[in-house]
């Protein structure tokens, strides 16, 4: 968990694969990289087996670029499509058994705090809607109620994409799927409302059709989780297989869904605003000067 763990033992560099050598020399570790520089540095995400044109992959890629300190970050995931890509990155990945990801992350965040004290060590949970809102629902909500200091990101594709198209708690009412031929009978779960009730310091929805916005949301969420408390991001990452979206129309679908039911929203608690303004130089959250009395 320091910059040294990505470096070679002296003398062994020339035997390593090219991708690894590029990562050590031109990766984002220890530098400030942003989405606008992408294409000119080696990204920490590598080749992965996810479907061509998957919006979830795009979101994961942008999230990996946006981590404020990638060398001090551990990702936690669970069964589902997302972990196929998240596990192929040059940062540690912990696989929580199905639904356990927020419980595993709780212990991990506490352990890192005990071991490293005030040094920033970030834990980021990235799991699908099924792993988080259905099977891991209790552990997710309990970790929020306990105010565990880590970031939770839901990759919401509104279906069980990995197992053939069953409805999940986050599927919209009336949606017909391959394994839900009569259409879903219940409303989509309001995880955003529950996150606010459970006391998350930062709650946001985002669609990956705006890379700079994804970057800013992830940076804020990770920094707030470091200082204040749990943070939650719900990202719409369409499943182009189960929802039969042609790959070249995936971003068009993102635009349609964003305008329809996934508008960008952001909730920041007052404590989190103060932490961002004073510790990380976010000027927009500084207290406004009082108006002059007329």
């Amino acid at each position: 968990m320091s910059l040294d763990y990505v470096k070679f033992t002296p003398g062994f560099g020339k035997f390593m694969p090219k991708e690894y050598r590029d990562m050590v020399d031109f990766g984002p570790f220890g530098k400030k990289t942003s989405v606008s520089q992408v294409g000119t540095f080696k990204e920490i995400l590598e080749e992965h087996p996810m479907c061509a044109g998957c919006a979830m992959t795009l979101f994961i890629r942008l999230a990996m670029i946006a981590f404020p300190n990638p060398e001090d970050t551990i990702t936690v995931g669970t069964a589902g499509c997302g972990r196929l890509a998240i596990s192929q990155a040059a940062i540690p990945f912990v696989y929580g058994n199905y639904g356990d990801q927020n419980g595993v992350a709780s212990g991990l965040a506490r352990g890192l705090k005990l071991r490293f004290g005030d040094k920033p060590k970030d834990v980021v949970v990235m799991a699908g809607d099924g792993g988080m809102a259905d099977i891991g629902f209790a552990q997710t909500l309990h970790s929020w109620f306990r105010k565990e200091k880590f970031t939770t990101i839901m990759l919401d594709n509104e279906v069980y994409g990995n197992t053939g198209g069953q409805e999940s708690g986050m599927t919209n009412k009336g949606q017909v799927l391959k394994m839900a031929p009569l259409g879903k009978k219940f409303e989509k779960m309001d995880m955003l409302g529950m996150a606010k009730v459970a006391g998350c310091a930062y709650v946001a929805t985002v669609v990956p059709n705006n890379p700079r916005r994804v970057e800013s949301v992830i940076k804020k969420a990770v920094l707030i989780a470091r200082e204040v408390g749990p943070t939650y991001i719900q990202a719409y990452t369409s499943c182009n297989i189960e929802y039969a979206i042609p790959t070249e129309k995936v971003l068009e679908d993102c635009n349609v869904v964003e305008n329809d039911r996934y508008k960008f929203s952001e909730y920041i608690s007052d404590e989190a605003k103060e932490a961002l303004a004073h510790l990380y130089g976010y000027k927009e959250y500084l207290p406004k000067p009082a108006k002059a009395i007329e």
Partner: protein
Amino acid sequence: MYLVAHIDTEICANTSCKLCTQFCPEANTILYNNNAGKDIGLKYGSAYVAVDRCKGCAQCVWVCDNMAKHNAIKMEMIDQIGDQALTENITYSEKNSTAILASPIRG
């Protein structure tokens, strides 16, 4: 044979948008060479595709046609592209990534 994305350097190097590099779902696939257009007298650098990583989803084509409105990216058969960038020929430097272009993959 299969389709991969191909970026027209002459159109791309007239603009500085870089949108396709941000919207590709594959990492390290659409890269940016700051010097690509300058040797042919154009103002900016150009994006290029590492063809061995491209999965052919054509999202970059939609982004270039509809968001950037430059129409610089087309899907082409991999053996029809003149010079190709392969991961093993790509070198990174500060604020740049350049590729030694190889001849087309035949067969």
